[in-house]
């Protein structure tokens, strides 16, 4: 177990290193002079000189990386030439919004997916199962950006529910009620997308587990159905669910840009798109780096949970 975690940790460090190199060299993969990419073609020679100095662009490329990574490790992601603000502080204000959206949507998704999947798996092909499976299948085929557009159309425009439409976002710290109202539609949209995935995976794994001999054995011990479902079947069925949840939540980190963009919620995704639109290279680079590392950490965390849930995994 300890050995397994150490091995994973070493891998983690390696991946983070590779990601940092990747994010750094992103700019060199793009055609053209880095300074031009960052500042645009119409930049003044003075600005170019400042940038060259700041990034050490006239030094060898390896050295550039170490200058850059040294800054990053000190929490300095550079200063945007477009908005003249620190990239790190921009990310710090945007990130909590993503976190809130993720927590809201995942709580909703799990709260719906787990009980419904367990119900469904108890009688595969029964009435409830058919309805839920067909429903989840249909939802699977509706992209989130359509869901959110339709929700906005019907709920905030047609029904006129307050504080749910575009640009009604208010930070949590200033008014948490309005904040929750304004995040309700995006959270619900993201929850639907997650729910569909979780429900389908848990259902099929539960069905497979319930056919295992150890479930029959548990029945033959005279345990109640409830106990068998939760104590015996749920845990071994949740490995794939947890793995998928890790990937999914990682994907939501700045991956919810569509809903944020539509409703003008200034999270990481929105900031990313805005940065792209204004060609704010340093901001994009900073977000790519932070999100990638975040994704890796989330996956690592879920791998850890999985190894707790299923002891077989850390032993192989």
């Amino acid at each position, binding site marked *: 177990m300890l050995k397994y975690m150490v091995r994973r940790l070493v891998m983690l460090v390696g991946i983070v290193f590779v990601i940092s190199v990747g994010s750094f060299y992103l700019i060199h993969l793009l055609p053209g002079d880095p300074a031009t990419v960052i500042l645009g073609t119409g930049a003044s020679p003075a600005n170019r000189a400042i940038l060259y100095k700041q990034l050490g662009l006239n030094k060898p490329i390896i050295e550039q990386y170490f200058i850059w990574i040294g800054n990053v490790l000190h929490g300095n992601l550079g200063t945007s030439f477009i908005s003249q603000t620190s990239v790190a502080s921009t990310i710090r204000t945007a990130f909590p919004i993503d976190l809130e959206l993720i927590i809201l949507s995942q709580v909703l998704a799990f709260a719906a997916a787990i009980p419904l999947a367990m119900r469904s798996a108890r009688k595969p092909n029964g009435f409830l199962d058919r309805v839920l499976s067909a429903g989840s299948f249909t939802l699977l085929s509706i992209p989130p950006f359509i869901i959110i557009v339709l929700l906005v159309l019907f709920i905030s425009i047609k029904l006129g529910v307050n504080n749910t439409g575009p640009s009604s976002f208010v930070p949590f710290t200033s008014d948490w009620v309005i904040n929750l109202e304004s995040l309700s539609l995006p959270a619900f949209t993201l929850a639907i997308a997650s729910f569909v995935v979780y429900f389908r995976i848990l259902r099929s794994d539960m069905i497979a587990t319930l056919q*295992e*001999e*150890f479930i*029959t*054995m*548990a*029945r*033959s*011990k*005279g*345990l*109640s*159905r409830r*106990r068998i479902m939760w*104590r*015996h079947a749920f*845990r*071994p069925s949740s490995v794939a669910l947890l793995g998928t949840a890790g990937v999914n939540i990682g994907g939501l980190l700045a991956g919810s840009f569509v809903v944020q963009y539509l409703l003008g919620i200034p999270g990481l995704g929105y900031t990313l798109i805005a940065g792209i639109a204004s060609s704010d290279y340093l901001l994009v680079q900073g977000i790519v780096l932070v999100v990638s590392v975040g994704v890796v950490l989330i996956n690592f965390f879920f791998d850890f949970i999985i190894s707790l*849930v*299923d*002891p*077989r995994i850390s*032993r192989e």
Partner: protein
Amino acid sequence: MTDRLLVVENLRTTFRTVSGVIPAVGGVSFDLGANETLGIVGESGSGKTVLARTIMGLQPRTNIEVSGSVLLNGQQVVGASERVMREMWATQVAMVFQDPMTSLNPVMRIGRQIDETLRVRLGMDRRAARARAIELLNMVGIPSAEARYRAFPTELSGGMRQRVVIATALACSPKLLIADEPTTGLDVTIQSQILNLLDSLKQQLDMSVILITHDLGVVATRTSRIIVMYAGQIVEMGATRDIFHHHRMRYTRALLDSSPKVANPSHTRLAVIPGRPPNLSTLPPGCHFAPRCAFATEQCHRERPTLQAADSPGHVFACWNPLAASTNEGDSTR
């Protein structure tokens, strides 16, 4: 019949599948006394496992039809609800499954799997259940039981796992233990250990055992009576000695003759049963064994033989052209 622990009468288990109706158990009757070991022998598809699970009331409840009667300690199992069965499981009847790799929950410590039953069924508190679980682990011969209490099934060998399964089954001192191929897949030396263990536990705990197997060697020395099954039906039943030495049914003979024996010299030509066990969804009208039987007559193909009594009490067989009643000891072992 009150002294009988288990009375099975005309038991039928039929599966309804997309490819037709499968009579997995087709009318089986037998009984079992207290502290008796009964062997049930048959090849794959003979219905022995389905029979065991029907007696346990463990079959899934969809697409299946069970008729007849199974009286376990006076209580009817056929048609009983899961709630009624739950009261009987573990305390009246318990089961040891074939594959110890799959019959233990892979993500639960083995101690928990044993004391769970004690706590749920006998209402023991955590500490008492733990003590009893360790006692049970000791009883089934698991070395350093205290330490193994916290082990996961994957950390144990096949033989050890089967011991854990047995300990779990015996936790609530059932009156009847059904062991379905408990040693298939285990090594010969481990197989002897497990069979000896079952034998001694049976004496110790005063229970009855049904030992289900495809291997005649397993039941030869550890049972008092044997049932031979073929295509979902009993084709011969009797005292173990009678089945081995005075069998009348030709399938029993063929089964004995076709398995190689250590005592025979090398390159002994094996007697072969042609063909293979029948497809249960398209059973012939006559004797189920007739298509593979060298002695089948027209009657065998037309009419199904019923169980008839042989010379010794309790020995019955179903055959139109049985072997002679005289001892055929020499034939079966040589």
